[in-house]
């Protein structure tokens, strides 16, 4: 075990996989000599050289497209998009090629690419350094979508993603990069895709969430506890595939689900979870299914605290749930 930041854990996972498997290459804007704008690829260029750590031109579509081509030819590319807000320039490659490559090629060719991108707000990043676009990818068959919330999970899930035979969109909550430290297992360490993490047990309300919002949920849970409400917090960790068993178990226990994420509400991934609950756990419910999310506006530069699903907003939903 070594104490690491979230960013360092990502770096550790990349180095570990690059050492273990020479098919693993890293590409993106400023990932080489600069070590990534968040330092996630620091020192990799020195260690693995420019044919495996590739600084690219400023062109998101080419980054994704080139990564796909590399993967089709047997490499395991990990492409970095500098901010998930810029992933849209590569959206056609992601949706029309990456997600569909195995299908279109009937398995002749496939592309186990990992696309890493920082997501989320909380760093005064404004409209284009704060977005959470996971729902777009969850709605795109052929992709898997992962969002870790701790350094250990970051390492374990990234290694699993790199080893996965399917393309994975790997979102890293940027406000956690350097704000969080914890003991991370050394060496080979994997966390399976598709398994949620029960962060806090509780009996009255289930907060189902992922990414940096886990911490807001925990704070809300603490405060609810003081009001005598016992809140369970579930960190999905993987969005596709998501851990329905864990969700369903929690909802059966509490009957009161609150779903929280940073992305805007309408057609966000929270809607999918709510819809599944409304289909499969309707008879377990003791309260309406509530969502606490970013508002349906672009991500604002000022007052982002108000925009985000902050602890106050989550707590309010918990109270509402308990009251109904």
């Amino acid at each position, binding site marked *: 075990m070594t104490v690491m930041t979230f960013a360092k854990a990502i770096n550790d996972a990349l180095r570990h996989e690059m050492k273990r498997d020479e098919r693993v290459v890293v590409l993106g804007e400023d990932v080489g000599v600069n070590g990534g704008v968040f330092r996630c690829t620091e020192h990799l260029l020195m260690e693995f050289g420019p044919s495996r750590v590739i600084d690219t031109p400023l062109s998101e579509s080419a980054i994704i497209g080139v990564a796909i081509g590399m993967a*089709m030819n047997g490499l395991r590319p990990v492409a970095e998009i500098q901010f998930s807000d810029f992933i849209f320039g590569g959206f056609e490659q992601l949706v029309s090629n990456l997600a569909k490559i195995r299908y279109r090629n009937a398995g002749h060719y496939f592309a186990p690419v990992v696309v890493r991108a920082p997501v989320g707000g909380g760093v005064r990043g404004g409209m284009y350094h704060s977005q959470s676009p996971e729902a777009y990818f969850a709605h795109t068959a052929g992709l898997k979508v992962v969002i870790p919330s701790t350094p250990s999970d970051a390492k374990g899930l990234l290694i699993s993603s790199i080893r996965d035979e399917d393309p994975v969109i790997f979102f890293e909550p940027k406000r956690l990069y350097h704000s969080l430290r914890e003991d991370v297992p050394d060496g080979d360490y994997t966390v399976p895709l598709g398994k949620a993490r029960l962060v806090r047990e509780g009996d009255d309300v289930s907060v189902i969430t992922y990414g940096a919002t886990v911490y807001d949920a925990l704070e809300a849970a603490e405060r609810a506890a003081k009001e005598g409400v016992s809140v369970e917090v579930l960190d999905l960790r993987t969005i596709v595939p998501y851990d329905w068993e864990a969700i369903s178990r929690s909802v059966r226990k509490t009957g009161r689900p609150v779903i929280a994420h940073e992305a805007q509400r309408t057609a966000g991934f929270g809607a999918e979870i709510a819809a599944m609950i409304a289909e499969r756990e309707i008879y377990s419910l003791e309260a309406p299914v509530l969502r606490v999310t970013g508002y349906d506006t672009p991500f604002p530069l000022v007052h982002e605290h108000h925009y985000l699903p902050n602890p106050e907003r989550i707590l309010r939903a918990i109270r509402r749930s308990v009251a109904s």
Partner: protein
Amino acid sequence: MRGKAPPDPETLGLSSEDLTRMYRTMVLTRVLDRYLLRLQRMGKVALYAETIGEEAVGVGTGYALRPEDVLFPSYRELGAFLMRGVPVSEILDRMLNTVDDPLKGHEFAIFGDRRYNIVPAPTPVATQIPLAVGYAMASKVKGERIVVMTIFGDGATSKGDFHEGVNFASVHKPPVVFVCRNNQYAISTHVSKQTGSSTIAQKAVAYGLEGIRVDGNDVLAVYLTTRAVVERVRDGGAPVLIEALTYRLGAHTTSDDPKRYRTEEEVQRWAKLDPIERMRGYLIAKGVIDEERDVALRAEIEGLVAAEVERALQRPGLEPAVIFEDVYASPPWTLLEQAEELKELSGLQKVTKG
């Protein structure tokens, strides 16, 4: 080559086998193309993009590649597939989505199969270009001596992915060759309304790369130029952009009516430059074939294709369950549930062929 007398095959370093193989494949392409068109009209093929008039580009480039080289084509490269040795039967199984369709009916692409190093074309224009660059990057990393070629239309050069892909290659210089099959139209849009540049080849200047324009109706010019470029790139040369100027004699696809946007005179003018006729004239002039052998060859090919069409039409179709295959290597539980749902439903309802 027009104007003066065409050079002899030997001067060009071509054997009569080279010549007849290319000629034969052009004829085969034309014949199969016409059958596929008819099969579409019969409702057996969903949609088809004709290749008539553009055979020299596919055949000339296809012949320049070695088997280990990898092709990322567009949807109009039938000639290249046949030249690379894909049997007519496999293309028919593909286009008719029989149970032997190598792409399992998932998609349109005329053909694609790893055994032939042919990657099925994506429908979204130009999006294969960065993939080809990436494939070539990987072969460089792996130390393979292969060349990757991607073929695309004139319309494709307007897309961001052409630019991003070629620019990426201009920096990292993997072994990739870009071939623009400039047939002068993107559906109804003439190339003069596609870009302000008067040639596609000059677009290479934007990347510090070499651009070459070649007569795309002259299969020998296409072949010789491409082969030289391919071998240069194989030996570590920088990527090259080749523009093969040709003309789409047919409709864009079976959903298109070209009379809406171009004159019959224009079409006739280009029909006179038919690449097959041109090659035929050359071969006869140089004594490589004679009229009699040509007639026999055409009859043989007609027979071959007709027989294969007959056969393929008899083959059974694909089961509905294929729609759940190849989405993931390890599918999410949601998808597995959905596959179960379809199974259950298929039991209840008549299984109709897609």
